[in-house]
């Protein structure tokens, strides 16, 4: 197909559009031909690459393209919403094309999936700010004090044995008793603390993953 044939077919397929639009569109394709020709392609090659003119013309009316338009408006509405909530920081770049879309019920409906995610994120943030932080502090300080108990029992037990050297005869058995008891109790509480700490770490990881999942994917 030659350039003339291509443009003629294209224009006739677009005939239901306003004339200025048809002229605009034809100019784009004329330019495409000119650039292609200047790069050494033939009119037939360029026509073939462009695709069937009737099909291309159909794309200007295509529902698919309308959908693309909706996606655009949707995103524009997102942006408008985000910008208005953050407008204190920076003035929003408002273009005439978008100002009409934000109040449109269709675009409000379209952004609701994003709102669900916003709700989920708010939930995660509030959960952590209001509840999790003090639960975490309580758990961590409890664990810390348990470990302190174990360590002091151990230190006390070892201390009793070292005190043996300086102790007069009658006190030896008491020190041995204290030393043995201290070390045994330190071992027992140490094992208990080890498992408590391990479970805390496992639980925390699961909690963090759960938070991430809700934050990124919603409920």
């Amino acid at each position, binding site marked *: 197909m030659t350039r003339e044939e291509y443009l003629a077919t294209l224009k006739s397929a677009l005939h239901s559009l306003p004339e200025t639009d048809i002229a*605009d*569109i034809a*100019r*784009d*394709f004329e*330019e*495409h031909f*000119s*650039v*292609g*020709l*200047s790069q050494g392609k033939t009119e037939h090659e*360029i026509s073939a*690459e*462009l*695709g*069937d*003119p009737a*099909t*291309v013309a159909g*794309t*200007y009316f*295509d529902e*698919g*393209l309308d*959908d*693309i*338009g909706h*996606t*655009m*408006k949707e*995103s*524009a509405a*997102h*942006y408008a919403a985000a*910008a208005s909530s953050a407008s204190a920081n920076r003035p929003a*770049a408002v*273009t*005439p*094309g*978008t100002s009409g879309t934000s109040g449109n019920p269709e675009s409000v409906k379209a952004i609701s999936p994003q709102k669900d995610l916003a709700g989920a994120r708010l939930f995660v943030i509030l959960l952590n700010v209001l509840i999790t932080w003090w639960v975490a502090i309580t758990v961590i300080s409890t664990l810390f004090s348990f470990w302190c108990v174990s360590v002091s029992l151990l230190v006390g037990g070892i201390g009793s044995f070292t005190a043996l050297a300086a102790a007069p005869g009658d006190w030896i058995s008491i020190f041995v008793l204290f030393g043995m008891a201290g070390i045994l109790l330190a071992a027992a509480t140490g094992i208990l603390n080890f498992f408590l700490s391990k479970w805390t770490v496992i639980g925390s990881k699961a909690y963090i993953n759960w938070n991430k999942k809700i934050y*990124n*994917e919603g409920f």
Partner: protein
Amino acid sequence: MNVQFKKGVLDLCVLSMLKESDQYGYELANTLSEIIQISDGTVYPILRKLATDGMVTTYLQESQSGPPRKYYKLTGLGKKTLISLQQEWLTFSRSVNQIVGGDAQ
């Protein structure tokens, strides 16, 4: 490649290609058609739609070879939209990959 797949992402592709530098129609059409196998003519309706929605503006610039070319430039709105579409696409494609069983990461 499935036509329905391409339709939804062409606008995102075009916006992404304009992120680094302004380009003219032929350039955009050529690159896109090479990468995702669409016919060159498909790009112009998309560019027109993007211009109508205020995502891009156009200006004419002389070229060393051939006639002046119509360049497409992202607007502020276009840039913001690109960012939000990019996010949506990444989230969406990740979810689809999880279901389809591709590379989930």
